[in-house]
């Protein structure tokens, strides 16, 4: 098995996102939908890096998206009149990454020392807690949020601001998705990935094998958080030009992330794409036919997956292609 073989699985990933992107560009009127689908894939890709690879459930995950959104919002709101052009967005992304890194370090320092169920308990309150901190102490305008559409227009000109929020923000969402997928593959092919697999399967045995499980959990946790932050910065801040605490700390995004990862296959590389597409499309059509019912339909599906198909779609596919040429591409 030569070195060049190791990264073959990125091929179907790139192909998938390229196809999605192309569909959006060339099929008229579908860009909105495609952008939504890309969002769900990116969400899944990012969340998979933690829940999928470690088997720990972070119920407060959306908080990382929330602070990322604030990172971008604050950058634009604060620096819009400095004539920075595209650097404004880059700074915003860096701030988003910084904020989510800081929050994940803070939460992780406490929560990651804890075993599975205790960890989940500790994270249950994270998004609630953080949201109430912002509202309660009136940080960043508290419950009033930050509206920066005017700032966007001043910084980029009215027309460009519009193009950013309807096109470039979506392109960045794709970038986040692909970036997260690439990072996942890099982890999988290096010691990090093996350590995570080991600790997911059997944490005590992993420790005895010499794996510093806390360290690897932290690595996965922070990486996953950074991508969440970048997603919030692009899909929420850049697209909408506003941020409110009770929008961006909404637990149902965590629920959606869970659905997507489980459906596609937790811990697989392609799972989040498959899960994101299926979930996104189903939700889109449900919104037309049976509005407000998507969680009611998907929650039992989570249960069905957990009890009957825990490896998810790509997980099962992966077993099926064992021994064929496809084995090298589908992981």
């Amino acid at each position, binding site marked *: 098995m030569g070195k060049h073989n190791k990264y073959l699985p990125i091929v179907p990933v790139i192909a998938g996102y390229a196809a999605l992107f192309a569909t959006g560009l060339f099929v008229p009127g579908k860009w909105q939908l495609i952008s939504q689908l890309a969002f769900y894939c990116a969400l899944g890709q990012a969340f998979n890096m933690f829940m999928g690879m470690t088997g720990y*459930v972070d119920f407060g995950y959306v908080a990382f998206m929330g602070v990322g959104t604030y990172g971008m919002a604050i950058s634009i709101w604060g620096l819009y009149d400095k004539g920075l052009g595209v650097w404004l967005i880059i700074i915003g992304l860096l701030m988003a990454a910084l904020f989510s890194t800081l929050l994940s370090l803070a939460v992780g320092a*406490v929560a990651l020392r804890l*075993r*599975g169920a205790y960890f989940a*308990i500790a994270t*249950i309150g994270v998004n*609630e807690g953080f949201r109430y901190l912002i509202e*309660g102490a009136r940080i960043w305008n508290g419950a009033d949020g930050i509206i920066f559409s005017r700032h966007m227009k001043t910084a980029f000109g009215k027309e460009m601001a519009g193009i950013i929020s309807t096109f470039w923000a979506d392109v960045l969402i794709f970038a986040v998705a692909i970036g997260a997928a690439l990072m996942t593959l890099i982890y999988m092919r290096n010691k990090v990935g093996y350590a995570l697999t080991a600790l997911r399967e059997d944490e005590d045995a992993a420790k005895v094998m010499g794996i510093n499980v806390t360290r690897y959990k932290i690595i996965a946790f922070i990486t996953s958080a950074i991508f969440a932050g970048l997603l919030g910065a692009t899909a929420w801040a850049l697209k909408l030009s506003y941020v409110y605490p009770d929008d961006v700390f909404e637990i149902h995004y965590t629920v959606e992330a869970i659905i997507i990862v489980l459906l596609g296959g937790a811990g697989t590389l392609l799972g989040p794409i498959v899960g994101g597409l299926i979930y996104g499309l189903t939700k889109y059509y449900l919104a037309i036919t049976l509005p407000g019912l998507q969680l009611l339909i998907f929650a039992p599906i989570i249960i069905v997956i957990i009890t009957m198909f825990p490896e998810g779609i790509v997980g099962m596919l992966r077993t099926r292609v064992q021994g064929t040429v496809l084995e090298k591409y589908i992981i």
Partner: protein
Amino acid sequence: MIADQLAGNLIQGIILGGVYGMATMGLSLIFGVLRIVNVGHGAFIMVGAFVALWMFKSLGIIPLVAIPVAMVIGMALGLLFYYTVMKKILKAPEMATLLATFSLGVILEETMKQIFTSESWGYNWSLGKLDLGVTVLPYTKILAFGGSIIIALLLYMWFNKTRAGMAMRSVVEDDEGARVCGINVDWIYALSFSLGIGLTVTSGVLLTMFIPVGINPYMGGSYTLKAFVIAVLGGLSSPYGAFFGGLVFGLIENGTYTLFAIIPGAEPFALTRFFSFVMLLVILLVRPTGILKAK
């Protein structure tokens, strides 16, 4: 004057805490016996709240009668969920039970949303108030507190005087050992889960006797967090610990609310909830980890 205020706060805190504690007993029972963390805990409380609401508004039946009804409904739900879902994933990795209970909670919330919409409801059952000088207590709150104590006592008798209760205790200690002694552990699991859910739903009724407004399908979320703080305070597997943890928590929550209300510019409601979360993290950090890890 200050002593009066403190005394008043103390009483309010304890009354509140008793109900909170009762609301957490089911969580601790389920974890103690089955080693399952019911992440959907708050949703079951919400169901109880709606039982009380519906019985009062549609049938004109007072919440006191709703208590046993809620218990029956809760136990039925518990049995249903145990046999359809939980039993299948007892041996699965932790992630499975966490996600399953979470999803059950979501199912309950969404179902209730379909029936009752996401509006907030309330009902008005007033029996007058008791004036204690230092503070004023509505009789409904006193009844809620009394109900909590009675249920806690009944549970105590259950664990110590009935065969099933004692069998439950032995399963908490050592399920292999219990099996070897001829105890039908699967049935104990089912009964414990059922009882735990029953207690949780019942506590929803008691909570509405305390706070008869703001009843909506998503009200459970904040109670889940509080319940976890209380459960961890009291030692996650002990229902009695949960009760006393509840008392402590009620006192602290009441106290911090009063404190935050004094600070200018702060929003006491939001900050109190933030504080609960900090408490949770602190307790989780300080208590030894790994000793009560899930099997």
